[in-house]
């Protein structure tokens, strides 16, 4: 049974690597499978100022790397591969990857979430050529141009602010009449001179041709009126979708599609845990993901101990 891991973690964000750290420190044979590199969504965040212990803040990518190093220091293994299938119902669970199958007594799902698309025609065709999901990645390509930010949460507000420093003009489109973002994020985009707000509005269609991206057709949700708004690019920040494709039909999900697991991180299947952004929870942050990882490892250890008896 040596080749069977005590725990396999799917996903190398803060939730995954904290589970790995706690499990490895508890003496469990632990592997974490990550498709790209440590950090998950955190690695795409320029600066993290709300994870305690880093008084000057820390780059998301650097924090991910540190979490990985820390877990590996205690013997957790990182396997770089893409998980293609999960069989979670048996006592010994199987994790299929692009590079072969692995078996484990417990599985921690730490797959996180992905940006939610606008869901309008042509979005796929305009990907990277007018439609973007990462302002800090692609904003530079719109220097001195006109861009649109869609959304009203913290990401949208932060994106609008970042882009307002780079671009000639930023048009912020939100379906309500006020930002949902935390107060801290509010003032700056509202004070920036080159940010224009379009409240109660949503993108109805994309306008583009072979040559270039032209803009959008914007619908006023109160009057139903549709008007053309020109812009060189659109940054979409309307929330995220949990990455649950691998567990459809196996794990119970909440109505929004997140994996149902309470504060113990236990799912409906014995020995299967969900941590971080993929779990049904109130607050999705680096620190709450990390907390989930610790809790999941604790209950996984308890689960293994009970099965030994």
């Amino acid at each position, binding site marked *: 049974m040596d080749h069977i891991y005590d725990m396999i973690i799917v996903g190398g964000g803060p939730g995954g690597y904290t589970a790995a750290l706690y499990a490895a420190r508890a003496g469990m044979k632990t592997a974490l499978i990550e*498709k*790209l*590199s440590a*950090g998950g969504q955190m*690695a*795409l*965040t*320029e600066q993290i100022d709300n994870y305690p212990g880093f008084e000057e803040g820390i780059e*998301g*990518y650097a924090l991910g790397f540190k979490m990985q190093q820390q877990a590996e220091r205690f013997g957790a293994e990182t396997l*770089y*591969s*893409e998980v293609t299938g999960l069989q979670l119902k048996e006592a010994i669970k199987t994790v299929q990857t*692009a*590079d072969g199958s692995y078996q484990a007594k417990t599985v921690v799902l730490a797959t996180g979430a992905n940006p939610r698309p606008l869901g309008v025609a042509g979005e796929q065709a305009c*990907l*990277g*050529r*007018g439609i*973007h999901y*990462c302002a*800090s*990645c*692609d904003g*530079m*390509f719109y220097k001195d141009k006109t861009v649109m930010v869609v959304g009203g949460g913290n990401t949208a507000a932060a994106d609008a602010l970042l882009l307002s420093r780079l671009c000639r003009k930023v048009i912020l489109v939100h379906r309500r009449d006020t930002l949902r973002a935390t107060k801290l994020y509010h003032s700056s985009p509202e004070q920036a001179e080159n940010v224009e707000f379009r409240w109660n509005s949503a993108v109805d269609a994309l306008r583009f041709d072979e040559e270039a991206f032209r803009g959008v057709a914007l619908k006023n949700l109160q009057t139903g009126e549709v008007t053309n708004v020109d812009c060189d*690019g659109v940054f979409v920040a309307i929330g995220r979708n949990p990455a649950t494709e691998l567990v459809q039909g196996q794990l119970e999900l909440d109505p929004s599609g997140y994996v149902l697991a309470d504060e113990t991180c236990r799912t409906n299947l014995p020995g299967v845990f969900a941590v971080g952004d993929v779990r049904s929870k109130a607050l999705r942050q680096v620190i709450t993901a990390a907390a989930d990882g610790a809790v999941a490892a604790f209950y996984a250890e308890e689960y293994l101990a009970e099965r030994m008896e």
Partner: protein
Amino acid sequence: MALIITKDNFEQKVLKSTKPVLLDFWASWCGPCRMVGPIIEEIAAEREDIVVGKVNVDEEQELAAQFRISSIPTLVVIKDGKITNQAMGARPKAQILALL
């Protein structure tokens, strides 16, 4: 080590290459580029049958414009001086190799 491609060595190292070329357009401030960077280096170390190059879009704005790069990372495969495949965004190693 992946080659550093500039507008000065582009023709020699990329267009005139007898092997297929995998180019990674990146920048230091781009999170997904940093995620994909180590994978690109790994491929460069493993594959002698191809040329792997990195183009810093901040320093090589002409090349970035020539390839109409507007999102990074962008990975481009060039064979016999022609683009045969390209993909935007960070992706796992197997998917990058599949581009070739």
